[in-house]
């Protein structure tokens, strides 16, 4: 048997090198089976695409400073909002938390040496890049102007590069499915002794619920995009009214994936927050079971809400009402979580570190975005707000306000775990304040604009909307500065940051049982778990190594 570098160190009696030191060549990264390295590859990839998507957003907002034609022409504007949506959703939000942080900490949290299928895990990263490269190729060759929703019949006739973008999204779907499949099998078969389901960290519960959606919803998107592609190439006509097809069927099939996909973006974010809330208030989770089961509840009910995107697409009033009520169930499960997080914070020993700032932002944005979601699920109100900036503001509150805040909370919370370095806490808080302030300045005006009737995706708008649009663009600029500050101080920390102690937060999350950064094999011996996660009542470590 060939010895890995880590094994030979162990044989020599020296402490095992960290996963970062176990092989330093490029190939040792590109051909790795280690879940931690795959996670780091994903982390850098999604951050790269986050900045690309962000540049598209800033260009859009820059155009919207003026009501008339300005800066870009109308077709480029259509391409910009399409690419902003496609990049942010398929290349950032969907993989961000599960594939980067999930891959890194899930095996650590359940006391495993790796995910169940390490090679498939690496394959998932390669599929991500194949999909991404196809999408980039399409962007360079003219992009698409359909919006990220690819509504037919326009998407089957648009002269832009819709087909390669659809193909890219199809391949990215495979990447997402394989990650979800890996996580479910890992949770079922690789939990350490003593780690019963009711002791699983809440982040693992969140990822488990996410994986169910990834497996059951993504294939439906796959076939839908495939049918649009053959429609473009071969004129099959399934969604083409000229050939007896029904374009609304596309909307049904598209949202059967794409609404649950919102929960692919939000459930892992909620999991990150569940971990951070406990760690930074030094309390066990209040209502552990309620938080865990509400994740499964959201995953389940999320499959029965897609019709709320079709309230004005000719759906019957009865079906609209039914979908509206079903959508409100998501609000109940989300509220259960919010109450439990607040219950956890209550009388906790709160340390106001950078991740905690993002927790505060997250809670506020999630409640605000969630409440407007309940309002939008009411058919009569939705008719007024449908396809206006009110919708844009609502889903940005959830996707940026909730998911990106949680991504940043996780990034700061696990940064010492992943890289063994500390970042500048002062700059962390400055950037967090800028981002939360900038976010409000960007999207609160959009709620107002939408309520006044400004439609989304329009190139021009009446002059009396200009003041609010300028405010929104100013906010987006602040937001952009905030992200650039984070990029700079984390890049500096990566190279010059002080060495971190193994558990800088004193967290009792299970992922902190091992060294930071962990050795390649995670644990010298698999621990036996003896506690609930985040049990701060004792000073005992959460897991013990029983020597037989």
């Amino acid at each position, binding site marked *: *048997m060939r010895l890995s570098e880590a094994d030979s160190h162990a044989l020599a009696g020296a402490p095992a090198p960290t996963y970062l030191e176990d092989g330093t060549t490029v190939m040792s990264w590109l051909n790795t089976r280690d879940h931690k390295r795959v996670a780091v590859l994903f982390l850098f990839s999604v951050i790269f695409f986050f900045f690309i998507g962000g540049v598209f957003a800033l260009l859009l907002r820059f155009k919207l400073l003026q009501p008339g034609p300005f800066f870009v022409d109308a077709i480029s504007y259509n391409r910009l909002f399409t690419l902003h949506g496609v990049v942010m959703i398929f290349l950032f939000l969907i993989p961000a938390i599960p594939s980067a942080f999930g891959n890194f900490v899930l*095996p650590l949290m359940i006391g*495993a*040496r*790796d*995910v*169940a*299928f*390490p090679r*498939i895990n690496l394959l998932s990263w390669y599929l991500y890049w194949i999909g991404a490269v196809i999408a980039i190729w399409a962007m360079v060759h003219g992009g698409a102007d359909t919006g990220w929703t690819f509504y037919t019949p326009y998407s089957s006739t648009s002269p832009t590069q819709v087909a390669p973008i659809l193909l890219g999204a199809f391949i990215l779907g495979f990447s997402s*499915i394989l990650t979800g*499949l*890996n996580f*479910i*099998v*890992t949770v*079922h*078969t*690789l939990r350490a002794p003593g780690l019963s389901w009711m002791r699983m960290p809440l982040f693992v519960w969140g990822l488990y619920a996410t994986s169910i959606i990834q*497996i*059951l*919803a*993504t*294939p*439906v998107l*796959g*076939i*839908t995009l495939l*049918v649009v592609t*053959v*429609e473009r190439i*071969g*004129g*099959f*006509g*399934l969604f*083409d009214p000229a*050939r*007896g*097809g*029904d374009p609304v*069927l596309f909307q049904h*099939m598209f949202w059967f994936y794409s609404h649950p996909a919102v929960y692919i973006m939000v459930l892992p974010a909620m999991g990150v927050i569940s971990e951070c809330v406990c760690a930074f208030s030094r309390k066990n989770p209040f209502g552990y079971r309620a938080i865990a089961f509400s994740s499964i509840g959201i995953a389940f009910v999320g499959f029965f809400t897609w019709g709320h995107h079709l309230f004005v697409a000719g759906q019957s009033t009865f079906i609209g009402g039914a979908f509206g009520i079903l959508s409100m169930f998501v609000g109940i499960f989300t509220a259960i979580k919010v109450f439990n997080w607040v219950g956890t914070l209550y009388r906790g020993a709160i340390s106001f570190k950078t991740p905690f700032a993002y927790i505060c932002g997250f809670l506020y944005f999630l409640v605000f975005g969630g409440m407007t979601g309940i309002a939008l699920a009411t058919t009569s109100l939705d008719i007024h707000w449908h396809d206006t900036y009110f919708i844009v503001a609502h889903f940005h509150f959830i996707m940026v306000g909730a998911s990106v805040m949680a991504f940043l909370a996780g990034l700061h919370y696990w940064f010492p775990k992943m890289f063994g370095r500390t970042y500048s806490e002062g700059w962390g808080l400055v950037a967090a304040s800028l981002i939360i302030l900038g976010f409000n300045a960007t999207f609160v005006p959009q709620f107002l604009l939408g309520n006044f009737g400004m439609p989304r995706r329009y190139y021009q708008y009446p002059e009396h909307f200009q003041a609010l649009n300028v405010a929104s663009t100013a906010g987006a600029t602040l937001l952009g500065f905030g992200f650039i500050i984070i990029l700079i101080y984390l890049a500096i920390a990566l190279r010059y940051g002080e060495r971190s102690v193994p558990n800088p937060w004193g967290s009792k999350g299970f992922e902190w049982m091992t060294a930071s950064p962990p050795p390649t*094999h995670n644990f010298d011996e*698999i621990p036996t778990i003896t506690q609930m996660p985040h049990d701060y009542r004792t000073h005992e470590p959460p897991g013990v190594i029983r020597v037989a």
Partner: protein
Amino acid sequence: MGIPEGIIGHHFSSLARQNEAMRLGMWLFLATEILLFAGLFTGYAVYRFEFPLAFADGSRHLNLAAGTVNTVVLITSSFTVALAIHFARTDRPRAAAVCLVLTILMALAFLGIKAIEYTEHFHERALPGKFYAFKEVPIPGAAMFYSLYFLMTGLHGLHVVIGMSVLTWILWRTLQGRYSSRYYTGLELGGLYWHLVDLIWIFLYPLLYLI
């Protein structure tokens, strides 16, 4: 005969646990395959409801004999792949290999018959969507029937090709002596996949040829 080297991953505590993981992984993957086809089945249901006459008429003009023979061929191939697993777990690798060869031959036969059918459609101009010019069924909705027919049988045919490739790879591993009563999970998973390909056809056959 022991377990061949390199089968147990370093992160699994036992082979039994790893087998459990592999089986669960395969079943989850099969679930994604079913949902992939579910989109087309939904499309079929919607347009069958919309154009009942055209669909019934289109169905009458398919080659029923070819479809029936193909159904028998696929069901038999499912039987031979199940036999292959049985022979592998009772330490008869040569018999297992013979069964796998039979399965692959039947997969080829299926594709051959399908190709003959496709050729007929091309000659009759019974083609999907905008290329449709089949004189015997000129009513509205018939083009939609052929669109769905080509999409569903095409995607299924692609799965037959994938399944056949997987089985060929498994045949090679069987000939290397990898599967025995100690370890046969790889073969078992290939068999599972083949059963799914078969099962989807069992739904396609009545929907497209019989009703």
